[in-house]
Structure formats: structure tokens, C-alpha cells
């Protein structure tokens, strides 16, 4: 699709959303109305990233992100339903599926007749994938017996296809490998539990799924070779984080638009709030973050389109952390600048804040990803130019010489470095995308935050001190 065609699609999504999507009603009903889901299917949104030969639109990641952002600007539950299907739900199948698996599933997925879900979190395994307890054991007749429990499965209530992670210790060459498996929604032994009651994203389906000795045929179920789950999962999660980040753009943009409208008409102390310097500064900060979100998501999506796996893994981590935090900050500002009305549900910004909150948690908790960003920077440093990059590199070299490999035993140091890395990537993306002096200045401001963070002396806390502090506070 050309950029003009891309814009037409974005406009169609905006028109559909304005006509059909009612966020407060979706939130109250805890579900997306069937007519909205049918409308999304009619627009072809469930096939945006799927190959054309199977009925999809084969859009680029850059184009898809613009559409997911437009959808999220209207309602985050709707965007999550579609984004999950396009990212985590189908990416493993598209990238690693066999021709037979493609033939069987992709046509229905592209039409939205089959909705996809992704299930990896377990009672004992969240961000720690090595703790996955779900197993797939080979049976004599080429089948696999899958047993385990999965939590917080987005789209789980109505999905007809689940991509799951399972430990496959007796398959392939790996002694303790993890594999990605496709499980049909109607498989015997797949039990769907009731919908979870959530703080936000209430229109999006989230359930637990039990896999009680589910039997599937190995060749139909295994994505690529057994034991390659960790490697493939990295790719799938990168795509998931990319679309999640794009959704954050939509939420932040909606919150900023609503806030701008409110402060333009709301008068206090004889002038509109928008005319007050304190408000202006906060709005400028929000605009700076939103601009960086867009730039960073574009850069990440471009890496996905170029099949640059290393850049995609790094940038999608930075994008997820930066965009989810920036969206949270902007939604919180929206509530604050709306005054009392921001706390009232009918205004709509409270819903945006509730919906945005989980983006800092799911698809990799931000603290884990930030620590990982620090670790990646230490093991595979990124060559970038600019003050922020120089500061991160100086911090990296200082850690190398001071701690050597022992630095890996101090996750809080990695986390600190990771925060600087995330800000550096956001600032650099914003700087590259800047076309005006104002945009360059705002990118530079973000860069200064990265420099400040990277240059700050990190002092690790003594755990025994923390225990004393907590006990003292809790007893007071």
C-alpha cells in the first residue's frame, strides 16, 4: 500500500471509530459489541499484516502501526483486540509456520473469522520464560500431549487459535527446550475460564486457559523445529511490543487532544488554562514525549520491515518501555489538567488512564525489559551519535572497567543503565525525525534527560537497610 493508500486506511478507521465505537459503553459492558467486531472485519483490519495470497493486506509494520494507533485513539480495548491478533497472535504462524499451517489458518485469520490469541504467562512464569511449566510430551502416534495452565490470555474468550509456549524436553536436540505450538480453540481439553475483572481494557477479553492433556498432531501444532521457542519467541514478542507501543501513541494522542480542548475553553484566574505558563510547560512536555513516541515506533517498525532482528529486538524493548510510560504520564496529566472533571468517568480521560496502566505490565514488565535493555547494551553496545549516546557509552565503559562480569549480578545497575538506553533511543529517534527547530529542541531536551540519567552516580541499596526502612514504616 502506498503512503496515500495508508492515509486513506487511517481515515477509514477514524470514520468507523467515530461512527461506531463508544469507549464508555464498551467499558461498562465489558465487551466489544458484535457489530463493532463485524465492522472491524469488514474493514479488513484482522488481515492487515497477513500475506496477500491468503487474503490479507500485507501492509508494512510502519503502515500497520499508524492504523493501530488510529484505532487506539478511539478505544484501547478495540485496538488491543486487533493489535494482539496481528502481533503476538499471528506473527509466530506467519514467520515460522509451515505451508500446511499457513493454508489451514491464514485465510480465516485474515478475514477475522478466526481470532488469534497468544498464551505464555503461567501461575509460576511471567517474564521469566525459563520457568514455563506447560509441557508437550510426544505420544507414540506422532501426537503431542499438552498439559499446563496459562493466565491473562488476551482474546482468549473468543479466540479460535492459540499460540502457546510449552516446554518440550523430549523433542529435538535440546535437553530442555521451549517450543511454540498452535492449539485450535476447539481442542478437547482446552478449558476457558471466566473473564477476569480488570482495572482497564475491560472490553478486551482476558481469561485463564487450562490445557488438560490436550492432544494435537505434532506437525500441525509445532511452529518450526522443536526447542527453538526461545529464539522464535523473541521475534514474536518484538512484534507484539511494537503494536503495543503503537497503541500507546493512540491513547496518548487522544488524552492530549481531550486535554487541549479542555484547557482551551476552561478559564481560571481570568484567562484560559491554555494561556497559563504552568499549563503550557506541562503540555509542551507531553507533546515532546508524544513526538518521540511516534518517532521511536516508526524507527522500530522500519527495523521490522527491514528484517533487522537485532535492531527490532533492541528498539521494540525501548519503544515498549518508553511509550507505555509516556502514555501513562500523558494520561495522568490529562486527568490533572481536567481538574475534578478528569476524575469523572464520563469525561473519558479516566478510562484512557485505566486502559493505559497495564501496558507497563504486560508483554514484558517494564522493569524486566529495562534491565534487559541495560544488559543488551553491555553485551552488544549500540553505535549511535550524539550527547545521549556518548553518555550511555561512557557509563557502559565505566561499568566494564569497574565491575567486569560482576555487573550482571547487580540487576539494579543494569536497570539504571537500561533507563538511560531507553531515553537515548527515544531522543535519537525524535532527533532523526525532527524537521523543525522546535522538534529538534524537544528531542534535545529528551537527550538531556538521558545524559543526566547516564551520568548520575548509581548507588546500590543495601537490602538489609531496605528491610529496616520498610519494617519501620509499616510499624509506624
Amino acid at each position, binding site marked *: 500500500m502506498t503512503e496515500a493508500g495508508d492515509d486513506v486506511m487511517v481515515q477509514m478507521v477514524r470514520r468507523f471509530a467515530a461512527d461506531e465505537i463508544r469507549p464508555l459503553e464498551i467499558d461498562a459492558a465489558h465487551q466489544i459489541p458484535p457489530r463493532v467486531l463485524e465492522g472491524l472485519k469488514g474493514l479488513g483490519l484482522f488481515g492487515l499484516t497477513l500475506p496477500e495470497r491468503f487474503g490479507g493486506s500485507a501492509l508494512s509494520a510502519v503502515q500497520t502501526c499508524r492504523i493501530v494507533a488510529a484505532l487506539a485513539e478511539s478505544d484501547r480495548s478495540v485496538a488491543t483486540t486487533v493489535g494482539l491478533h496481528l502481533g503476538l497472535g499471528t506473527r509466530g504462524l506467519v514467520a515460522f509456520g509451515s505451508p500446511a499451517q499457513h493454508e489451514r489458518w491464514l485465510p480465516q485469520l485474515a478475514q477475522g473469522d478466526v481470532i488469534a490469541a497468544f498464551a505464555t504467562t503461567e501461575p509460576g512464569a511471567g517474564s*521469566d*520464560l*525459563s*520457568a514455563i511449566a506447560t509441557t508437550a510430551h510426544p505420544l507414540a502416534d506422532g501426537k503431542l500431549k499438552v498439559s499446563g495452565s496459562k493466565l491473562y490470555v488476551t482474546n482468549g474468550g473468543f479466540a479460535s487459535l492459540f499460540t502457546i509456549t510449552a516446554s518440550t524436553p523430549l523433542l529435538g*536436540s*535440546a*535437553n*530442555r*527446550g*521451549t517450543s511454540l505450538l498452535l492449539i485450535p480453540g476447539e481442542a478437547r481439553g482446552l478449558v476457558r475460564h471466566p473473564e477476569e475483572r480488570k482495572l482497564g481494557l475491560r472490553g478486551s477479553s482476558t481469561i485463564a486457559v487450562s490445557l488438560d492433556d490436550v492432544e494435537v498432531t505434532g506437525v500441525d501444532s509445532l511452529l518450526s523445529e522443536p*526447542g527453538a521457542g*526461545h529464539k522464535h519467541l523473541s521475534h514474536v514478542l518484538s512484534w507484539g511490543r511494537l503494536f503495543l507501543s503503537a497503541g500507546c501513541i493512540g491513547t496518548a494522542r487522544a488524552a492530549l487532544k481531550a486535554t487541549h480542548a479542555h484547557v482551551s475553553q476552561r478559564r481560571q484566574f481570568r484567562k484560559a488554562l491554555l494561556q497559563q505558563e504552568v499549563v503550557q510547560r506541562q503540555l509542551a512536555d507531553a507533546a515532546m514525549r508524544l513526538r518521540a513516541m511516534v518517532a521511536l515506533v516508526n524507527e522500530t517498525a522500519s527495523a521490522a520491515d527491514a528484517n533487522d532482528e537485532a535492531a527490532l529486538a533492541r528498539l521494540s524493548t525501548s519503544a515498549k518501555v518508553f511509550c507505555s510510560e509516556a502514555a501513562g504520564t500523558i494520561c495522568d496529566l490529562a486527568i490533572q489538567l481536567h481538574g475534578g472533571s478528569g476524575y469523572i468517568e464520563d469525561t473519558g480521560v479516566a478510562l484512557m488512564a485505566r486502559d493505559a496502566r497495564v501496558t507497563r505490565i504486560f508483554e514484558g514488565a517494564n522493569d524486566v525489559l529495562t*534491565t*534487559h535493555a541495560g*544488559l*543488551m547494551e*553491555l*553485551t552488544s553496545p549500540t553505535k549511535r551519535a550524539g550527547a545521549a549516546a556518548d553518555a550511555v557509552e561512557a557509563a557502559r565503559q565505566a561499568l*566494564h572497567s569497574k565491575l*567486569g*562480569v*560482576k*555487573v*550482571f*549480578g*547487580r*540487576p539494579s545497575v543494569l536497570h539504571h543503565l537500561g533507563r538511560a538506553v531507553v531515553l537515548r533511543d527515544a531522543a535519537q529517534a525524535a532527533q532523526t525525525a525532527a524537521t523543525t527547530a522546535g522538534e529538534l529542541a524537544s528531542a534535545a531536551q529528551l537527550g538531556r534527560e538521558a545524559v543526566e540519567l547516564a551520568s548520575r552516580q548509581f548507588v546500590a541499596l543495601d537490602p538489609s537497610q531496605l528491610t529496616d526502612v520498610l519494617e519501620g514504616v509499616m510499624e509506624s
Partner: protein
Amino acid sequence: MTPDVLQQQIFSMMAQLSVVRAPDIKLEHRLREDLGLDSVSSMELLSMLAEQMNLDVPMEEAAHVTTVADTITMVQRHLEKRAMP
């Protein structure tokens, strides 16, 4: 420290981070695929070894460690280096 004792000590540390028990760990096992250590925990392992055995292991060297045997070789090399006058 004898090679056997060193090996058992390293296996025991690996078992703390892996779901594989110390008696089941083999020299040819890969840290990721066989012991189930992800990038964070495999680096944590090398860090634990460096801390507990008081070794100065450069980052570049650690990046090339992928198997249990590599780990033991790396530790032995540093212990020998430290013992040299």
C-alpha cells in the same frame, strides 16, 4: 581445589538458576537450550562465579561462554592466572 570439586561447585551454582538439578547437569549442556537459562540468568551465573571465586572476568570473555564446559574452562583459566606468581 581439585577439578572435580570445582566442577561440582559450578554445577551447584548452575542448579540454583536452572530447573535442571546438579546431578543431571552435563559438560556438553548448553546454558540456554539445555539448562533453560535466558540471557539474564546466564550472565547472572557468570557473575555469581566471579563473585564467589573472586575472579576478574572481562565482559568480552564472558560473551563467548555458551556451554557448561566453556564455563568451567573459563573459571579454571582465571584460577590458574590468579595462582601464577
